[in-house]
């Protein structure tokens, strides 16, 4: 990987990683040894009040060695790849593995795997440096200034090489890159927001998304307070992504087995509306799928929720072995889609709504009750009252108390999957949704 980042930084390539792996294995006295490399060159241009307030670039290379004697294991990490430092990391891992108690759940590294080669590092993103990020930031700021609004946001890009190898012959190495943009347009007492994350910095859609944030900020002016309560809501994709992300985090198979997951006992049963499907789509060009997991296992396309029925859980290798699950399902490129009739746009959902609340995004989502996955959070950066099929006014932000496991069973209508991302989620493809009786428990002052 070269060029771009001013041609000044060369990330650890496949052969260099092989050399490092051999060095680690040569010094390791363990029964098993796993080597993980993460070498990243990243930068962010951050702006606020229509000016650059932070402009950073960093190079970080990390090597982690996990070493085991029987079922005793330990891990050591170093950011120094000189031979002496790598040897020292091996010794630290070895020292821990020698004194740690036996771990009944230890599983040796996987054998060699076959991987799908995916375009995970697009040249335009790898090549993007401070000048390109500044150019995009300037575009967003100038659009906001032109509308007499203040812009705050970020443009960032990252290129990395990632490697996983082991004494078993396991060897994976991949270049990855992504770019991120988000902007908050601020008026006198209103805000509007938009964001995107993409493998291609050229696909961030800075102009279109900034215009959307501007429109929301302008429409948010003069927001009125209306009482909390149960409302029909139209959730834009980022808001749906916020709820879905918490559902995805709760699918751990060990928690499921122990009875400490909200899904416990529900595998194979309908948990959400029968029109909805959740799948991992690592091959999708608008998602950030990669070739392998941190343990060197290949990622896979798989249905997790099929027509509302829970079909998959997230297994660690020990639990997978217990359940004889092969291959281990991964969910790093989530796509939620709906069967049947889809609305063409958020506007169509609005037009078909007699009275409801249009939500741009949620913020500070946290669990309230892990047993039934009741969550709380605030609406943010564009919350509107819909009456008789049109937005009539902006309203003060609400706090919600709702479980996605309940809300996604009150689904009225939805669009096709759209790109979604926020400060609290990764990149997803999810529909905008119209949901009835969504529970807003209180209202704030703006």
């Amino acid at each position: 990987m070269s060029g771009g980042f001013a041609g000044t930084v060369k990330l650890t390539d496949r052969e260099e990683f092989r050399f490092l792996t051999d060095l680690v294995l040569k010094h390791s006295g363990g029964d098993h040894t796993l080597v993980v490399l993460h070498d990243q060159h990243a930068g962010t241009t951050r702006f606020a009040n229509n000016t650059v307030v932070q402009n950073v670039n960093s190079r970080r290379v990390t090597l982690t060695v996990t070493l085991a004697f029987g079922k005793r294991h330990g891990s050591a990490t170093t950011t120094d790849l000189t031979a002496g430092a790598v040897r020292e990391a091996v010794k630290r891992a070895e020292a821990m593995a020698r004194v740690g108690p036996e771990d009944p759940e230890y599983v040796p590294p996987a054998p060699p795997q076959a991987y799908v080669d995916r375009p995970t590092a697009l040249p335009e993103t790898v090549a993007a440096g401070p000048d390109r990020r500044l150019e995009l930031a300037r575009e967003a700021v100038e659009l906001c200034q032109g509308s007499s609004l203040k812009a705050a946001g970020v443009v960032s890009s990252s290129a990395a090489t990632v490697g996983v190898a082991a004494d078993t012959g396991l060897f994976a190495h991949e270049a990855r890159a992504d770019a991120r943009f988000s902007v908050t347009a601020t008026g006198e007492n209103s805000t509007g927001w938009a964001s995107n994350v993409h493998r291609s910095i050229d696909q961030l859609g800075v102009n279109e998304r900034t215009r959307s944030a501007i429109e929301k900020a302008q429409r948010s002016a003069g927001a009125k307070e209306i009482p909390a309560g149960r409302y029909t809501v139209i959730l834009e994709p980022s808001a749906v992504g916020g709820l879905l992300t918490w559902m995805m985090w709760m699918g751990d198979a060990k928690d499921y087995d122990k009875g400490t997951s909200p899904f416990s006992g529900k595998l194979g049963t309908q948990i959400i509306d029968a029109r909805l499907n959740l799948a991992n789509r690592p091959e999708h060009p608008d998602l950030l799928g990669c070739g392998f997991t941190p343990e060197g296992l290949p990622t896979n396309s798989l249905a997790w929720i099929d027509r509302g029925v829970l079909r998959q859980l997230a297994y660690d290798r020990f639990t997978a072995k217990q359940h004889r699950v092969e291959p281990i399902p991964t969910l790093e490129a989530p796509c939620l889609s709906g069967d049947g009739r889809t609305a063409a746009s958020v506007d169509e959902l609005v037009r078909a709504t007699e009275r409801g609340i249009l939500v741009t995004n949620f913020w500070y989502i946290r669990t309230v009750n892990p047993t039934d996955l009741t969550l709380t959070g605030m609406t943010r950066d564009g919350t509107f009252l819909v009456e008789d099929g049109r937005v009539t006014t902006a309203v003060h932000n609400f706090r919600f108390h709702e479980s996605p496991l309940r809300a996604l069973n009150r689904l009225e209508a939805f669009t096709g999957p759209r790109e979604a991302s926020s400060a609290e989620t990764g990149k997803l493809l999810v529909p905008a949704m119209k949901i009835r009786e969504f529970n807003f428990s209180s209202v704030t002052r703006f």
Partner: protein
Amino acid sequence: MNRSEWDELAELALKRLRAAGAEYGDIRILDSRTQVVQGEDRRIAALRDSRDSGFGVRVLCRGAWGFAASSILSVEEVPRVADLAVQIAKGSASMTSEKVRLAEEPAHVDRVVTPLRIDPFGVPLEEKAGLLTDVMEYVQRQPGVVRSSGHLWARRDLKLFASTEGSRITFDLVAVQGGFEATALQDGRFASRTFNTPHLRTGYELIRDANLAAEAPRIASQAVEKVKAPPVEAGRYDLVLDPEHLSLTMHESCGHPSELDRALGYEANYAGTSFLTPDKRGSFRYGSPHVTFVADNTEPETLAATGYDDDGVACQKWDIVRDGLFVGYCTNREVAPKIKEARSRGSNRADGWGSVPIVRIANIGLQPGRATLDDMLADVKRGIYIEGHDSFSIDQRRYNFQFGGDAFWLIENGRRTHMLRDVIYHGITPEFWGSCDAVADPSHRRRFGFITCGKGQPGQSGWMTHAASHARVRNVSVIRGGSAT
């Protein structure tokens, strides 16, 4: 790499910045070591020892910032990164409407070392693993408990800060923490109870003195009591809040809104802004006269008491809220002049060599009052006593908040009676603190801290300590978390 080599690299970078015509520049070189022992369900699930070393160069050129960092500490990499920082700053200058002006600070030459009795990295791992194994065993002996976990954490930061203004400060900072959790299951419902030592800048004596194993049976028994407890009935209650619980309430509702960069819009796209805008300083009634929040980055052992911040500004003590009135902000050298303060409060911190320092919450603590806990409880007819942390959420201007807790007891006619579950309280920040009518005396004061305070883009984890005695807040809206809401 030894200290004199660090000095040479620092000088190499600073020379480069001066030659490029920088108005200001600094370099931070760090070598951080983190050790984690993690237990889960009676087994030691992870033993991790991480070394993270590198340097970051920050430069002010033409009134704009540039920052570049690298994990490669070499005589070839340092000039490359310094030049890149300058190049980035000059790019920033092309999109900067107001030039950065730094508050004055004298140059400091100093060394800061965490006093400790027992080096946490010198304690045998067998002892640490054995402690957690014992604790998990005690926890899981309790009928009804289905899961256990525990952790021990230690960190050492060796750091050099050097600036073009002549500051040269070296640091050898250590921090330690430990805790465990019990999870109980009842009728398909589960609930957890946790025990945490504070995160403090001290040695392993913190863990030994906390006697985790002795606490395990109590915590396990309370986990079972909690999962079997009746759910709270929604309504208005007087709350008596313990110091650990208060540390989070103070952090979210007072700490963050008092960060001046937020109030000025720097975080508008992520962490948010603040209802405590500069025009309110000195006149806004934030809370009742019982409420005084003091920022103290000089108190020994606390996380933000590092001697100097990452601007090279000496740590200080000042008021945020005095007798209920909002009076002060957490600042750095960049934002202090924007509210006409001559000197930074010294609250600019980065979470590592690869991050640029940003304004961070100081060690903000609630000043003790005169009551005893028994007095405070005795004067409650219908209330809830809350310990520890759980669910929390707050809007981006820090008005509307909601908190759960780790354990709840119903107070009736001045007495703590039985446990409750699913307690959630919510409110509007100044109304909530305006209803505080008692704070316990200094004998009740405890310190708790955070090392995962999220802020900034790219995201950084801030460290700070919040001390408090118990506080009583009247007539707070309580709802039931879960399906009944």
